[in-house]
């Protein structure tokens, strides 16, 4: 893919930091994973901002159905409870599928990274001691992605742009949209 040829010379620098091949593979993959997290967080913030109002509306409806369902249960009104459940399932379905965009926006860089790694490191297997297995580039990348994500969550309040997004998300989570 021409895109990979274009970015190859940039991404390979992540794997040339120490000069030691094994250390560079470990470090480079972690840096690539962290870069994937950064890009994913950037794109998810865009989708969130663009779709916030729509998601809020859906959240309000789901929360409303939830409260009515609880109230119907408390009052022992089985007919209303069943009806509200039906409406609530509909509302939930809309919210569930609308959040697909958020997931996609967060995760797409993983697959672009894996696509690039497939061209460079498909043949490399890291031996697992005692088991006699080898970890391929996919598994190794995913092993690095998780700590990269954890590191990002610790650092984001200090990173430009993400600091603002973090504040927005914090205030969003504090607001119970069902009470608006």
């Amino acid at each position, binding site marked *: *893919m021409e*895109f*990979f040829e274009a970015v190859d010379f940039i991404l390979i620098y992540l794997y040339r930091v120490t000069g030691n091949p094994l250390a560079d593979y470990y470090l480079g993959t972690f840096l690539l994973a962290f870069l994937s997290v950064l890009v994913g967080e950037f*794109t998810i913030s865009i*989708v969130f901002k*663009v*779709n916030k109002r729509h998601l809020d509306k859906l959240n309000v409806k*789901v929360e*409303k*159905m*939830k*409260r*009515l*369902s*609880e*109230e*119907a*249960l*408390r009052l*022992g*009104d089985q*007919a*209303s409870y*069943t*009806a*509200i*459940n*039906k*409406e*609530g*399932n509909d509302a*939930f*379905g809309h*919210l*569930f*599928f*609308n*959040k*697909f*965009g*958020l*997931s*996609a*926006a*967060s*995760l*797409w*860089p*993983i*697959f*672009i990274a*894996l*696509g*690039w790694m*497939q061209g460079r490191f*498909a*043949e490399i297997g890291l031996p697992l001691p005692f088991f006699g297995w080898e970890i*391929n580039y*996919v598994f190794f990348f995913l092993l690095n992605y998780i700590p990269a994500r954890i590191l990002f969550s610790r650092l984001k309040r200090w990173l430009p742009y993400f600091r603002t997004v973090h504040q927005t998300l914090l205030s969003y989570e504090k607001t119970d949209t069902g*009470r608006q």
Partner: protein
Amino acid sequence: MGKVKWLGKGAVILFILSLALLTTAMFTAVAQEKPKAEPPKIEAAKPAQGALVGNNLGLGGKLGPAIAKTPAGKGPGQIDVSAPRGAFGIPGAPDINYLLAIIWAVWVGWIFSTVGAFGGIMAGVGHITVYGLGDYAKSFRTTNPALNKTLTDSIRTSNQFLVGLSALISTINYLKSKRLAWPLGIALALGSIAGAVFIPMLTGGKISFRQYQGWFGVFVFVVGAVLLYELTPSGQKGKKAAKAAAQAFEKSVKEKKDISTQGVTLKKFGITKSTFTFFGSDFDFNPIWAFIGGIVIAAISSFLGVGGGFLYVPYLTSIVGAPMYVVAGTSAFAVLISMLTSIAGYITVAKAGMDWSLIGIELVGIFVGSMIGPRTQKYIPDKWLKIIFIVLAVYVGLRYFSAGFFGKSWVP
């Protein structure tokens, strides 16, 4: 004025429907035209009878060994080792047009954010037809059935990546908000793991593309039938009654906004009967039925690559009658677990080859489409959206069902 408005909306709907059908047909034609080898007047280049590729061309999993046993050459069902590498890294395979892939994925994302479930089907249509992967897999039906089946596994797994990973954020949110009936969730999740493990083990490398296409067509018919039922008078009657009852109840009670939400509490656990309480009401369920349901639903969605979320919620609602947000969170959890298990199974057990960059590109399209959907929704009523997708479901279902089980499509 009302009439004009109605005609205007009808015109918009017709326009979108025509555009959707035209686009599907056009993309299909483009995909079919695309990377077919030049016509083999190339008699001189034709390989010697029975010559095989002979090596795995650096491709891993089951794909490499299957390619090694494929006849070498430039004709259909053969691999031209000198051709540029296409999908899955196979020389001569369709060179997927990534612009086409993004545009189709925007369409898929748009559907997710408007109607919902049908998006997974359209994602599958993209892999099967629009990108030309289905026709490519079919071309090996007689020359190398093993490669046909391995490519089918890759297509199935690609469907699951899109649908399963897209549900990730929803699931994490539900887990965080603790809206899970854990005993029910665990029984369902264990069943879904079993289903999602067995299907790659039992069917990995064994399902031909035509068989997969035929069953996918059947599933599309089922989804279309459900959408159609929702538009019928009896389907509408149930929906209207539920809406009216909910509104009446809302009016009759004073919403207590300071009600603290009670959690789900397990009251009794037994292999054949368990009980959890919620707001003073008991909900009984049979963990064995939850487990069996998990197996069946996960098996269907693992086999096809779509369908989990669409099936879990009605199943849980019918066997337990649990509060909707408990069912919602529990089913989201089961969808995620089963999809991840199934993907892992196809990659490690069936050793399906993956085109990672295609998945990445498609996810970009999905998030772009999901931003467009809410903005167009106000122009298209839900009812008309469903009509559009019913028509598409009939077309796609007929086409895949007939091509898969009868070898020839009954529709153009």
